[in-house]
């Protein structure tokens, strides 16, 4: 099967970056959930810091929980689908290099019911589109995969 995924274990709210030289492969990370999640009515927000999408990605990013085999073909009707967010490219040049944002967020509050009772979560980040062939991509860009510096869930 031409699909790879990686898991970066997190302590607290810290995650590591792992790059994979596989076109179109999503990235899977394991994160801890806030200890007070079940005792609060505050929103539950996923943060992905310094997220950079693959070159020429569409800007739509889907997030799945506990489904490490999720990819762009996985149905959004799947019960593991947590939602999507978008990162709009400012220019064609930015799209060609891969859009980068300091803090990409997804409100998980509507799916909180699915997370009750869990202390940790396996998240699969699935960018739609993207290419490994763009000459505009930085030389050190991972091929076809999103990169980031930190993933965590907070109750702001």
């Amino acid at each position, binding site marked *: 099967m031409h699909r790879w995924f990686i898991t970066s274990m997190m302590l607290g709210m810290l995650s590591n970056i792992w790059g994979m030289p596989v076109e179109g492969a999503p990235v899977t990370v394991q994160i801890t959930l806030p200890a007070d999640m079940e005792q609060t009515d505050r*929103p539950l927000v996923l943060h992905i810091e310094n997220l950079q999408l693959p070159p020429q990605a*569409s800007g739509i990013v889907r997030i799945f929980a506990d489904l490490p085999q999720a990819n762009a073909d996985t149905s959004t009707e799947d019960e593991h689908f947590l939602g*999507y967010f978008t990162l709009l*490219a400012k220019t064609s040049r930015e799209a060609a290099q891969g859009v980068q*944002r300091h803090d990409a967020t997804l409100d998980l509050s509507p799916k909180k019911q699915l997370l009750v009772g869990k202390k940790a979560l396996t998240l699969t980040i699935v960018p739609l589109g993207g290419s490994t062939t763009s000459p505009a991509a930085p030389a050190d860009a991972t091929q076809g995969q999103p990169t980031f510096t930190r993933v965590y869930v907070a109750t702001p």
Partner: protein
Amino acid sequence: MAGTSHHTRRSFLHYMAYFTAASTMGVGSRRAWSAEPQNCAGPRPPATPTRWTPDTNPILPRLPASTLSAADVTKLRNAYQALRDLTTTQPNDPRGWLQQGDKHCWNCGGGLDHQAGEEIHGSWLFLPWHRAFLYFHERILGALINDKSLRLAYWDWDNAANRTIPAAWTTPNTNANALWDANRSAVAGNQVPNSLVGPQIMNPIIGASNFTQFGGSAANGGNLENGPHGAVHIWCGNTMLNSAQADMGLLDTAAQDPIFFAHHANIDRLWTVWLQASTTHKNPTNANWLRHRFTFWDERKRWVSITVADVLNMSNNLRYTYGPAAARPAFLAVAPKALSLQMEADKTIVLPEAVKNRMRAAVADKNLTTLRVEGVTLPLQAKGIYRIIANKPTAVAAEVAGTPNDLGYIAIVPRTSKDEGGHMHGSFSIDLDVTEQLPKLIQENGKLSLSYVPITDTAKGAPLQYQKASLIER
């Protein structure tokens, strides 16, 4: 102007950079005539803007694009043609079509040279800035055809019946149609996918409990901006969703496509829908937000400043509403209305045929449905998280978690570590979103019993004690 390319009217020296970029990307000849700006600063404004004041134009509704009459479409096309013509005849006129596109570019990160004005995406400025942008755009369109009654139309893609890109913007697909855009991927008959704007996406957005979630904060964009807003942009630029493409899919070219304004009118309308969806939905009261000033060129080519507070009252100040009144979005097609449910002596809810029919209709329409349980009492020693279970009165939590019988949960939080009994000593109400569970509930022999069970151990459930239950369909 029929038969004349919009794109040949563009300033090629100003926009040649895109040709190079497009060639590098290998995106094909369709892009060769595109107009991605190198620099989108626009005409130099005076040092001090004029303070904006409301006009006395009639208060008129912006209509759904799907309901426009032939006369409405003609008026809108004439206005956009005049806007395009202004770019040809007076390229430096700040009101022209390309200058309007550049205004958006300037406040969205800038063009290829990265020179930019204030960034209004990714924060709570997103909604009010775009409301003001559309207001001045609307005034300019009306002035160009000398018609103060012109109002923008909105493309209500959140309504399943109107998910197809509006025909007036796609047909005819030639330069004779000033609403058409050669760089738009979406063509006649294409529909925005349910996965991007369907009820499962829209219901939580309209249900967002506060403005930070819905519309953003000083530091982050809200769910509407980060979700369907961006998704429809990307889809219009590339319906395959496998890359970001001009015009709509890139921020520096997005407002060159007239569908931008129909799309953003809908975003603006959804702001009002959110405010109307609950009495607890409020705009921020933070003075930094309310006093924040934006600057635009108005229909008389004056450089004016307008505050966030100015744009909040759109009917009184900006002279438009959203209509017709009956055109509520599909996911709010039925006004919130409680339907009391009959109960037998043991608190089993009886579902009469009429109720079941209504629930089936709600399922078919994918309406948001809430089961409200009032007068709930729990034993004083109860604390922690409890699942509310339908029709499995003795199940343990692990047996029903994630199944249609699992209606949600409640948290009984002790006030202190010594508070043995939690703090819900009186009765209380629970609102449970049962939209996804409705099909299963309907099949449970026409009856519905409620129980509660602690989520963390193997204790069996117990009947939930309450006074009244009702269904609220929105």
